[in-house]
Every structure is written in C-alpha cells, then in structure tokens.
C-alpha cells in the first residue's frame, strides 16, 4: 500500500525511523508518531475488532477520544494490554497486536458473531442465560468478554512514584487557551503549573498557519518560555485524570513507554480547565466502518504527523469548522466532497474497506468519510468537581454553568470555539479578571440521531451499542439515562463514552420526544482516561503493603529460631524451632506447665492515665469498679462500648494515687487510646486527666509456670517474691543499674506469672538473662500459639475471638458490676436493656468431648436437634497437651443453664456431640495461680 505520509512536516522527526510490527507484520514510522499515525501512514486502517460483534474497526479519533484502536503492546519482552493506538508513542521494536481479534484485526475468526447481531442486542446476555442458572454460562461468557489479556508476570521495575504537590494555579490543557492563560497568570506573579497530555504543547493549534503573526511552533515556544521565565512549571505527557475534594487533582505524568506513570496529587488553589472539545460522531448506517473518522482527527493526523488519512474524502459536517478543514486537507492533496448530513440520511458503503458514501440515491465514490456532528466541550473534570452544566442551544452542547469552588473553564472547554475570543478570555482569566463575551463565529445546524432510521447505526463504538439498542431500552422502559447506560452498557467501556454519550442521550430524547437537556447526562467519574492500577499502588507493596510493628526483641527471637507471623499488627513469634509445628507448640505448652515459659509480651498496651481526676476517669471507662483499687494493686476488667458490648479486656494497675497503667490487649492499643482521648475531652475535665501511651517505651518479658518464681529470684532485683509479699494481682517497681523495672504478677495462663517490663533499649539484656536463668529449670521461650492453648485450658478469653459483636460482660460470667456498681460507666444503661435481660443470650461455655475424640472445629455451629437453627458456635478449640484431651470454648444460647447438657455440633455436613461444661479446664480452684 502506498504511503499516506505527505510533505507537510508535522511534529515528527523524519531523520529517526522507527521499526515496529502490527499483528505480526513489519512497518516503519518515525519518532514522534503514535502507533495509530504510523499505521495510517502505512495505509493500515483496520486496527481492532469491536467488543461484542467483532466488527472491524479503525481509528475514529487522533487522541484520547478514539474508542476503536486498542492494542496489546510488547516491548523488550514485557507486554502491556489495552494501549490506545492513538495515544501510544511509537518506539523502536514495538510489537503491537489488536485486542479482541484473533489471529489478526484484519481477519478475525469470531467475526461470525456479527451475523447473529439480531439476537445479540441489549440485554441479550441477561435474558438468555438466566435459565437454568447463570453460573453455568458465566465461565464461557467471561472468556469471551473483555478487552486484552493481562500478562501473568508482574512487570519488574514498574513502580509509580507518588508525590504530593501544591500550586496556586493549575492550568489543565496546553492548547492556545491554556498556554495564554498560564502565561498571563505566571506573569501576574502566580505559582503556575501547566499540564498537557500530549508530548508537545499546542493542542489543535498545529493545524493553524499562523497565530498572532507567528507560526504555531514559534508561538507555543514563546508562551512556554514566558511561563517558565516567570517561575511556572510545565508538565507535558501529563493527564489530569480526576478532580477530587478541596482542589485535589490527580495528575498522571507519563515517561518512556513501559514505565509506570508518576502520580502527582496536586492540590491547587485555583484550577483552570482548558481541556478543549471533541468532534462528536454523526450517527448514520455503517458509521463504524474503518475509514469513517472525525474531521478534527484527520486534521490532527495531518498537522502533527504529516499523515493524510485519505485521498478522496467525503466531508460530512454540520458546522462552520468544516471550511478550515477542507482548506487544509485540500492543500495537502485530498479531493474533498462536501456533504450536508442534515439534508438526508447517509450511509457508508463497503465492508472492511470503505467503498463510498450514499445520501438518498446519490453515491459518492470516496475512500474516507470525515464526520462531525459539532463540538462537545470536555467537561469531565468540571463535573468531577461538582460543577453544573447548562445546555446551550446555539452550540448544541452542554457547557460549564455554575462553577465549583476555585475552578474556571476557558477556551473550547467553555464553548469558546473561536481562537481570538479564546485567547482574550484566557488572558483575562489568567490575569485574574473577568472575561468579556465577544461575538462568536462558530455556528452549526442541529444534527442528532433519528430513531427509526434504517441500518445499523453505531452510538457506542467500543461497546457496540447501536441506535436500535437505545430504542429497545426505551421500549423496555429503561428511559432514565443511568438505566439506559447500564442496560445497554452505553458509555461503560474504557473510553467512558467520550464519543457516545451525547449521541445516546440525544437518541433517548428523540425517542421520547423530550428536549435533550431534560434527559440530562450520566455521572462523570474519574479517571478521565484509563490509568494503570500501579499508579494507585505505588510503594504500597510487599513489606510496605500492610507494614507490621517490630519488636525490640526480634533479633533475639530470630536467633532462637522463631517462626514469626502477624498477631494484632505486630510481627511476633508464633513458636520456636524447626520441625513439626504441632509438636513444637505442644512442647512449649508442656514446658510452661511443667517448668516455665518465657514470653515476649511487649505489644501489650501500656497506657498511663495520670492526674487528679484519673481515678474517676478510669472508673468511668471500666465496667469494673476501679475506684477501690489500692496503689500497688492490679485488677482485671472490661472496657465496654456505650452499647454495652465488650470492647477490650485486660488488667489495670494503680501505681500511685494519681497514676494508672492500662494494659489493654496488643491489637487494641490504638483504638483504646483514641477511645480514652475522646472520652477524656467529652464529658470529663481534660485539664485534670492526661493519657500517655507508653506501649513502645517499655518491653515486657513474661515468665509463666510453676518455676517462674525460682527463675525470677535469680535476677538480682532485691525483691521479696513470696506469695505473701508479692501476691497475685499486684505490681512492684524497682531498679537495676539505674534502669527502672516494673514487675506485675498477673497471669494469662493460670499459672504463676510475672510480667517484667523494662525500657525497650535494655530489653535484649533482660531477655538473655531470663532465658539463661530459666534454662536449668527447663524453661523455654514460648510463642503466641502455645499461649493461646494455655489460656484456653484455663478458660481465659480473647476479646474478638471468644466474644462477638453482641457479647456483654454478664455473658462472660462477670456479673457483679452490672448489678452493684453505682457510679456511671460507659455502656452501663445498655446492660439493662430488654435485649441485655433476655434469658437466652449467648454465653461463654466450655465444650467437652469424649476421650479419644478429635478436636472440635473452631467456628462449628452448635445446633438444635433438628439442625434447623444455630444456638451458638465454637470460638476456641485445641488439643490440650496439659490435659491430654481436646478443650473448647464457645458461645451458646442460655449457656450457663445448660451445664451438663449434650449438644450437637455441626460442621461441613458432619454432626458431633459435645457436653456443655464450665469454661475452665485447668486448675479450676486457682491453687496454681495463687501459689
């Protein structure tokens, strides 16, 4: 095929040829080309297949408005799906393939689908595959659906840089208006950022011969130099893809092909939209044929790339911009036939290859049809920001109306289609003045889809929605534009209806005989053009995806061979050593019960509450009475929500009259701190209560087990450790080498335990000494898995595991405060609601199974005899190494009254028996605890 490249220089560099392939065939273009311009220059027009009917398609547009030419592009062994050919810069050695076409766009095996189009109308899939079950058909349909394939391998070195930024004035769009406005604003002393999605600024200006006595390139260079000279920044190949709250604009700055775009989260005091306007398609039979293009696209291909898209061209336009286009294309050597589409229905002739255009009985032998139904301003970002649109009858378009805060539209985006007027408007706005309205020369004859017209007339090229589909939707009463959109999928493809929405709305308006503005538009949502997911992802990957807090003692745990995992936001030892994990955990449990376990409890909350009102405050915060707690003593308690639900459990120590330490559970520290701060300032006197979260200042090493006292005694702390001097639920403070040490005698295992806290930088020293002291006794480090078993044996709960969103303290057997505590506390009234008083509330129980039976599955339902209803469920369940049989905890309706009852436990179709018992399997008398 002969070249379509003309003498017109364009913006390409003809000294730099670029070789590439398309659907396996080799071609050559130039630096500065896009894939689409290079293919058009080579005479290639069929660049893709449509989504549903696999119709051959070629480019309609020359930039982001092209819905048709979508390719998978491979470069250096990495492939990128869904690259729009019209915006993808040509790079040496690119291998492009049309999506949705196999083996090639020109010859597509599935094209036979087009023959069945009568049955594939809107709603076809919904209606056809309902019976007997959508899921039977879903896999097959999913395989056929979608555009492009994602490579299985994540591309390496493909990470989006994400940066926050700010400017006074952000000008979006670097055409004539944007450039003039940015310059005026910069010269008025504003901090300006100008962005444009093209690599070369100027917008449609390159189609002009002269502007203000300069060539377009000279004029553009002048403006850019002036902007930068005045301190402004300019960002080419940067798309403003969304406007978010409070002046935040998402900017995707593209670099070389195959590299991830940079995300600028640009906060702009003022946003100027100079985004221009699009040529909208004319709806006629066969308007999707390759060779039917936008008038403006043909001009852009010529102006930017020196490509003349056809030689015998029918120019079917309803507006005054056609004259300039005709002159430009004629000068480049094309023979133009002007058609007035409003004078009678037109239809494209031919198949893959366009043969001509017919209007009534007249046939025009042409190789190309250029169409324009008028200009549609690009108001997407205006609508993202909440700006209103007004219908302009003179221009037959929605124009920016009431403005969102800090935003203004200029130039073609504002309906100012005349260059001179756009420049004066842009300069006025840039300088901070109001713009004066001058006379307009743009004119057009209204031209919209006419229902009932013959032939298949495309409204949405990318999603294959025709005028008949819109008519069908209207017949089936999907008349609201939002319903129309979802029923027909009009505007829901990756181009988001840039070229189709107006035609769709107009068709619906015509069908219903309503004025177009009354039909309204669908919602515009970011992103304006598809952006890679990577841009939102950035550095939030791998270890930074959900970063965990790290223990001061992690090196000690690693040295001891710990298996580390996430527990409540911390990376903590699950167990130690290599080998069978169950055996290792079992051994740890036994060593804790027989000698002692050494446990890193550092993440336990250490939130100090201080001040003259500290006592009243903690008494209000806790379900349990704290007022009566004496300095040096510790109490176990619950924090409730105002709904009376158990939010956290833990111990609280009173160190002095005005100082308490709240030891909330490890995973709840942040939420408990916020809870305390909110209540401190709401309803309490914040000048008399102060809350310090010292969780990470202190590390805590726990020794638990019958030998705990002997081991602790080996550390020279100078304390009397006898049960009389240092009983259960008390705390002692001491010092070692001028380092404060706090020892709390509390237990989460049912055995005598000491929690030794020391400043974190000294924790490793303490850990080493405790491990050394424990070794002769047979004490070993234990991980969380062993601890979970130890506490379950004793029936100690974990909030959120053994409780749910309905559990109140009396469901857990802690009933006294509910009945006796007089002063107000959070959640108090809720504990006496009708619901709280119900006798069949789910309560904590133990569940015993027969000797030799398997462990009950955690989460298994406790069901009534007929399996018709769940009465509760198993919350914790382990094979107890200490007792030699399974133990389980559960929540069960009316649980406390069911002791001794045999219940059915159902899991995955299997039903077993268990006996309800007290929720404590180990040392129910507490002799070991108080030893």
């Amino acid at each position, binding site marked *: 095929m002969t070249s379509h490249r003309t003498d017109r220089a364009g913006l390409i560099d003809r000294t730099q040829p670029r070789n590439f392939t398309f659907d396996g065939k080799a071609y050559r273009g130039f630096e500065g080309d896009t894939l689409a311009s290079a293919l058009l220059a080579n005479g290639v027009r069929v660049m893709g297949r449509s989504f549903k009917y696999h119709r051959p398609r070629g480019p309609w547009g020359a930039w982001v408005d092209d819905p048709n030419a979508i390719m998978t592009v491979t470069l250096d062994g990495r492939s990128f799906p869904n690259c729009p050919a019209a915006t993808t810069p040509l790079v040496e050695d690119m291998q492009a393939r049309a999506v949705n076409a196999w083996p090639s766009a020109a010859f597509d095996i599935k094209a036979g689908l087009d023959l069945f189009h009568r049955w594939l109308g809107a709603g076809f899939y919904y209606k056809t595959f309902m019976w007997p079950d959508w899921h039977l058909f879903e896999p097959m349909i999913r395989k056929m659906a979608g555009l492009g394939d994602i490579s299985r391998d994540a591309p390496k070195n493909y990470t989006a840089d994400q940066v926050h930024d700010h400017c006074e004035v952000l000008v979006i769009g670097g055409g004539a208006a944007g450039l003039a406005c940015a310059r005026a604003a910069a010269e008025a002393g504003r901090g300006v950022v100008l962005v444009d999605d093209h690599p070369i600024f100027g917008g449609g200006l390159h189609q002009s011969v002269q502007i203000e006595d300069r060539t377009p390139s000279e004029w553009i260079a002048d403006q850019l130099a002036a902007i930068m000279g005045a301190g402004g920044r300019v960002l080419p190949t940067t798309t403003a893809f969304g406007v978010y*709250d*409070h002046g935040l604009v998402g900017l995707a700055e593209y670099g070389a092909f195959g590299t991830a775009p940079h995300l600028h989260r640009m906060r702009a005091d003022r946003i100027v939209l100079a985004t221009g306007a699009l040529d909208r398609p004319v709806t006629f039979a066969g308007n999707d044929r390759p060779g039917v293009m936008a008038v403006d696209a043909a001009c852009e291909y010529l102006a930017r790339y020196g490509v003349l898209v056809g030689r015998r061209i029918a120019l079917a336009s309803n507006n005054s911009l056609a004259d300039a286009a005709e002159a430009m294309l004629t000068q480049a050597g094309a023979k133009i036939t002007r058609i007035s589409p409003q004078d009678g229905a037109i239809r494209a002739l031919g198949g893959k290859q366009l043969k001509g255009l017919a209007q009534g009985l007249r046939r025009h032998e042409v190789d190309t049809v250029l169409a324009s139904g008028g200009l549609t301003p690009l108001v997407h970002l205006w609508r993202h920001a909440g700006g209103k649109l007004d219908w302009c009858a003179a221009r037959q378009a929605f124009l920016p109306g009431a403005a969102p805060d800090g935003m203004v539209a200029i130039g073609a985006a504002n309906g100012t289609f005349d260059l001179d007027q756009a420049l004066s408007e842009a300069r006025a706005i840039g300088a901070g003045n109001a713009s004066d309205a001058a006379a307009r020369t743009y004119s057009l004859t209204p031209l919209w889809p006419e229902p009932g017209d013959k032939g298949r007339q495309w409204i949405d090229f990318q999603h294959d929605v025709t005028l008949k589909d819109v008519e069908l939707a209207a017949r089936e009463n999907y008349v609201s534009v939002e319903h129309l959109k979802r029923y027909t999928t009009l505007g829901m493809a990756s181009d988001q209806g840039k070229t189709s929405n107006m035609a769709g709305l107009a068709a619906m308006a015509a069908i219903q005989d309503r004025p177009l503005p009354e039909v309204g538009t669908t919602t515009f949502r970011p992103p304006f053009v598809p952006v890679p997911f990577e841009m939102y992802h950035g550095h939030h990957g791998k270890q930074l995806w959900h970063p965990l807090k790290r223990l001061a003692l992690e090196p000690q745990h690693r040295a001891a061979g710990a298996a580390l995992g996430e527990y409540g936001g911390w990376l903590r030892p699950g167990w130690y050593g290599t080998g069978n994990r169950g055996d290792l955990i079992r051994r740890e449990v036994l060593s804790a019960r027989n000698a002692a376990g050494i446990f890193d409890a550092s993440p336990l909350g250490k939130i100090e509450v201080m001040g003259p009102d500290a006592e009243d405050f903690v008494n209000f915060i806790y379900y349990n009475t704290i007022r009566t707690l004496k300095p040096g003593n510790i109490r176990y308690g619950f924090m409730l929500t105002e709904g009376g639900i158990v939010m956290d459990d833990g111990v609280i120590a009173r160190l002095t009259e005005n100082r308490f330490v709240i030891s909330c559970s490890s995973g709840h520290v942040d939420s408990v701190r916020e809870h305390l701060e909110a209540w401190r*300032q709401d309803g309490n006197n914040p000048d008399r209560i102060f809350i310090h979260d010292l969780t990470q200042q202190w590390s805590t090493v726990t020794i638990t087990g019958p030998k705990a006292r002997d081991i602790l005694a080996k550390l020279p702390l100078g304390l009397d450790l006898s049960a009389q001097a240092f009983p259960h639920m008390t705390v002692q403070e001491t010092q070692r080498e001028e380092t404060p040490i706090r020892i709390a005698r509390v237990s989460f295992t049912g055995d005598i335990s000491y929690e030794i806290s020391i400043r974190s930088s000294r924790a490793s020293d303490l850990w080493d000494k405790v491990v050394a002291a424990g070794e002769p006794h047979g004490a070993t480090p234990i991980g969380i898995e062993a601890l979970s078993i130890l506490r379950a044996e004793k029936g100690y709960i974990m909030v959120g595991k053994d409780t749910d969103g309905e559990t109140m303290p009396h469901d857990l057997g802690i009933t006294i405060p509910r009945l006796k505590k007089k002063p107000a506390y959070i959640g108090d009234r809720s504990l006496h609601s009708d619901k709280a008083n119900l006798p069949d509330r789910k309560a904590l129980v133990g569940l015993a199974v027969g000797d030799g039976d398997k462990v009950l599955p955690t989460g298994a339902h406790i069901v009534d005899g007929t399996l018709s209803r769940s009465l509760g469920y198993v919350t914790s369940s382990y094979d107890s190494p200490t007792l030699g049989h399974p133990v389980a905890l559960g929540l069960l309706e009316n649980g406390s009254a069911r002791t001794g009852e045999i219940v059915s436990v159902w899991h995955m179709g299997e039903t077993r028996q268990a006996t309800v018992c007290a929720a404590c399997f180990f040392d129910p008398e507490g002799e070991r605890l108080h030893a």
Partner: protein
Amino acid sequence: MQIFPCPFCGPRNETEFHFAGELGKVRPDTGKEVNARDWATYLYAQRNEKGLVREVWLHLTCSELFVMERDSLTMDVRASKSLRGDAL
C-alpha cells in the same frame, strides 16, 4: 482527599482525622434513671443531614476533639472550633 482545619494544628489532610459523632449528643446521666427511649435515641438516632452539618471530629495526631461545620453535600468546610472552653 479533603483538608480539615484542626483548631490547634491548622489545615491537615483528612487521613489524620476520625469522625467522632454528630454535635449535640449529650450522654444521659446514667447515675439516675434513664428510660429506654432516651437511651436508644442517644445511641442510635442520627440526624444524618444533607447540607450544613455540625460534627465532632478527633484529630488523631494531636488528639484534639473539636467541632467542625461543613456541608455534607458539597464537602465545603466552613469552620472548626475547639471543644475546650479556654481554646486558643
């Protein structure tokens, strides 16, 4: 991403804040008898208004609990004010 004005810190990104409730919720004095209806209203009745709202927010980084007046429709923030009587 909205910008909220903490009465102490000044304007900060919304990620630093938590919603704490609608303004005007007063905890009934549970030292006295509180009827079920009043308690349920306190717990569950939200005005959830469209347009101008006054809410209590917590600035997580400085723990300031404050009142913010904003428009729930346009997301405009009108003003913020400390809950403290002696606020700066």
